[in-house]
């Protein structure tokens, strides 16, 4: 293994190599498949790896290139897809026992776009069940570990996609973000992740959690790679009535814009929300760096965001309780055979895990006669006020800055017994969902936490990545990405050196056993 390994490269670099004919897509895909089998035992990012289909697509792309045809914006690049986004012929479990056996018969609009632009779908990634969670621990189908510290969670709910990118198992991945599910795992695993504006990317084929908040978003090692995905998946879709019919710029080209003179606001509320000292230090340093980049930074107030988490935990479960009704064992869901059809419903619904059941109950309650006004309707009103806060702020500021999450990655099992502490992981990310705004998480440094200690290589401290969140005006992803790119370039040397070191450390434990497996399977 060395730093020049194909799997250690970014998508933009791989595209150049393939275009120059120095490597083939098959070689690239094989390199990532090898990397997956090398580290997957430790990381557990994937629920399904589509080796055959991926290699077949890679061969098709190579043939296109050889015959001089343009293979598309992502020609030959492996992409991982969160397991709540439909890809025809692949499983789409949503991390749930309920859909453990379901194969999607159609492509989500984003998956179709990826295929049309030559991307190679390499596998489906693990997630919290139906995207409900902030650690991927709510998956019923496997554990995903944070590649920076295997004792820790990768964040969630798109923890599989984030961990896969961080570990070098895939250069690009898709996640979905309802309350922070792309940005928070991106922050926890030291990669970049974007929640686009609500309506920028089609939701057709994304299994709905909370329809008015859900948005598919890209994850990648850096902003440049992120833009490659955004250029492919953005745009109006006549199959999604909530997608917006407005022109899509080239995000890749927008990165060359100057950030000088941009106005950045820092909500004073954001540092009161249980933010750890390490995260605070990283964030403050990030603000200094942004100022050095010519961004004018001031404190602002978004008073209503104080209620964002409460508001979110009414609206999201309410919508979820309805969206998940279809998993009743009649057409979807593993049917429990019983003597009566009512019992069948009840027994079937036990295939949901505890967090999903909790949210269905919460949401059902919030929508019930007599409670609707006090809960759902009031939350909808608060949501309007939160939107108004942002609207006012964006009259003066171009971007709003905060940490992505109050802490760095926590330990596996640390918060599973206390749902409220788990919910707190989203406190800084949910406002953007409620207001429908684009928000980016970009690595901004490291927090030091106690290491594994002890003998051997046991270290005394472990460095865990921290994310900076940049929120922008509706449909102004360009400014957000541009600022994120400028910032990332400033921190990249340090961040990427750590990343390379982390990646090197992966796979050692499994090398021996991999050999055993190969022998065993003949």
């Amino acid at each position, binding site marked *: 293994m060395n730093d020049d390994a194909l799997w250690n490269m970014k998508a933009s670099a791989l595209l150049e190599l393939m275009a120059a004919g120095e490597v083939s897509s098959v070689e690239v895909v094989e390199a990532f498949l090898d990397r997956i089998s090398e580290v997957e035992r430790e990381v557990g990012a994937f629920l399904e790896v589509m080796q055959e289909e991926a290699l077949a697509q890679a061969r098709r792309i190579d043939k296109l290139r050889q015959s001089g045809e343009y293979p598309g914006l992502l020609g030959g690049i492996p992409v991982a897809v969160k397991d709540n*986004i439909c890809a025809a012929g692949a499983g789409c479990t949503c991390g749930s026992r309920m859909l453990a056996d*379901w194969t999607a*018969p159609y492509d989500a609009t984003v998956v179709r776009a990826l295929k049309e632009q030559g991307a190679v779908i390499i596998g489906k990634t693990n997630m919290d069940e139906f995207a409900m969670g902030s650690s991927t621990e709510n998956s019923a189908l496997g554990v995903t570990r944070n590649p920076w510290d295997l004792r820790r969670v990768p964040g969630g709910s798109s923890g599989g996609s984030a961990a896969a990118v961080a570990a070098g198992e895939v250069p690009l991945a898709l996640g979905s973000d309802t309350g922070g599910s792309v940005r928070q795992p991106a922050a926890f695993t030291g990669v970049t992740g974007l929640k686009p504006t609500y309506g920028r990317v089609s939701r*057709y084929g994304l299994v*709905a959690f909370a329809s008015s908040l859900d948005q598919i978003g890209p994850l990648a090692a850096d902003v440049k790679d992120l833009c490659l995905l955004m250029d492919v998946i953005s745009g109006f879709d006549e199959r999604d*009535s909530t997608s917006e019919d407005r022109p899509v710029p080239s995000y890749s080209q927008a990165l060359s814009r100057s950030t000088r003179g941009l106005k950045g606001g820092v909500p004073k509320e954001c540092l009161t929300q249980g933010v750890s000292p390490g995260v605070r230090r990283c964030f403050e340093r990030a603000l200094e760096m942004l100022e050095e980049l010519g961004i004018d930074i001031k404190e602002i107030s978004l008073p209503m965001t104080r209620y964002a988490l409460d508001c979110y935990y009414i609206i999201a479960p309410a919508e979820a309780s309805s969206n998940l009704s279809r998993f009743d064992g*009649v*057409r979807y869901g593993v049917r429990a055979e019983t003597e*009566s*059809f009512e019992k069948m419903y009840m027994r079937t619904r036990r295939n949901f895990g505890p967090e999903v059941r909790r949210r269905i109950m919460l949401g059902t309650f919030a929508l019930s006669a007599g409670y609707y006004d006090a809960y759902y309707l009031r939350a909808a009103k608060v949501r309007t006020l939160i939107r108004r806060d942002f609207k006012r702020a964006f009259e003066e500021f171009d971007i709003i800055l905060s940490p992505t999450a109050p802490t760095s990655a926590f330990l596996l099992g640390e918060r599973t017994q206390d749902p409220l502490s788990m919910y707190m992981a989203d406190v800084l990310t949910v406002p953007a969902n409620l207001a429908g705004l684009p928000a980016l998480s970009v690595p901004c440094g490291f927090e030091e936490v106690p290491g594994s200690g002890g003998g051997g290589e046991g270290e005394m401290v472990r460095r865990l990545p921290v994310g900076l969140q940049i929120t922008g005006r509706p449909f102004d992803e360009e400014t957000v990405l541009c600022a994120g790119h400028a910032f990332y370039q400033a921190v990249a040397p340090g961040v990427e050196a750590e990343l390379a070191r982390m990646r090197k450390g992966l796979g050692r434990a499994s090398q021996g056993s991999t050999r055993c497996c190969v022998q065993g399977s003949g």
Partner: protein
Amino acid sequence: MVVGLEVHAELLTKSKMFCRCSTRFGDPPNSNVCPVCLGLPGSLPVVNGEAVRLAVIAALTLNCQVNLRSRFARKNYFYPDLPKGYQISQYDEPLAVNGYVMIPGPPPKKIRIRRLHLEEDAGKSLHAGDDITRAAYSLLDFNRCGVPLIEIVSEPDISSPEEARQYLEELRRILEFTGVSDVKMEEGSMRVDSNISLRRAGQDQPGALVELKNLNSFRAVVRALAYERDRQSRILAAGGTVLRETRGWDESLEITVPLRAKETSEDYRYFPDPDLPPLVLSEEWLEKVRREVPPLPEEKREYYVNVLGIPAYDAGILTSSRKLAEFFDECMSEGADPKVASNWILSELLGYMNSCGLGPDAIPTSPEFLVKLVKLIEKGVISGRIAKDILVKMAETGRDPEEIVREEGLQQVTDEAFLQQVIDQVIAENPSAVEGIKKGRSKAIGFLVGQVMKKTGGRANPEIVNIIIKSKLEWIRDA
């Protein structure tokens, strides 16, 4: 008796409410389905613009106020033929409100319409057993799932089974006439639920509300309401109380029976569907639709009577069905005389159709052919009597009347020399009739004409025959 009716009508769109699947009735089970109407995970609804247009036409003709902004909401409940676990409907922001229809009475009465909204239909369940709780298994057909519906909710202005029937007849006529729905109760494209309660004389508040289901025909509605009225008044007369419940109409026993009692009152947990933005109509669009609304039966009836000079009764029949009125209108644009065309349609064509049990949507010939037939009579090519036979042939074979006349040699005979011969023969064969005429029994002339027609197979021109006979008999008299 206080009655309110909820009518569901399927809209005559080619595709479903939220996807592009066909709405065709009678196709093999589960052949018109896609990810959207099957509620596949990840699928999303997109509103069918034609369904909105038809619903707006219905709303306008029912004198409703159309809301420029309405909203789709989810009605949540579990049932196997509802694959999403919720029905997309409209709740607190319906498409239209505050309409009415006039029923003829006597006396004529205004039945107010509370609201009209758009929704999607559910699939069809077929239980191997009495109902789903006792079935060994159930079969599901999702072809109907997602078919666009309008629900029309009346105010409780109906006070007798007969008024209910008139209201439904009126609704059916209007919806059929405007092309909004084909309103066939037997195919389920029109469905009726009823709420009924009795109010004690002298009291303002009606009693407990009973909901009636399984009303599969207008007759069932009338019978069920009458039965329920009698049942409830018996209970009240005996000092009892009517239970608030849902009852079903048993067609074979002609009684209402309590449906399975609900343990809890249903809570559908309506909330705005986050997958669909509010339905916003522009004033301009609404005006455009308003101009496109086809004239209603009564407007047409007035036009037929006042402008075309058709008797009111006949105009009423012509406008009793949209297909019939359209047929008549096309005859007019083919250039037929209104009264002549109307007579042919009402007496001959409808007579034939009734004898074969054909409904107005199965008219067995075309307006073009009917007008050709009428013109053949006007031009003297065929006699009216022959024309009636030709019409039957046209109806049976769908052929062109000119072709039938040509091929079967049915042209009228106007050749005087030939007719002279036939008439001489008839006079010779019927001396007693001739005697009668001589004695002044003018009726006998008709007899002789009839004999000539008989000999010519109905092809002789009766007017010419008449003239020749009269002139011959005059000659005899003079002799």
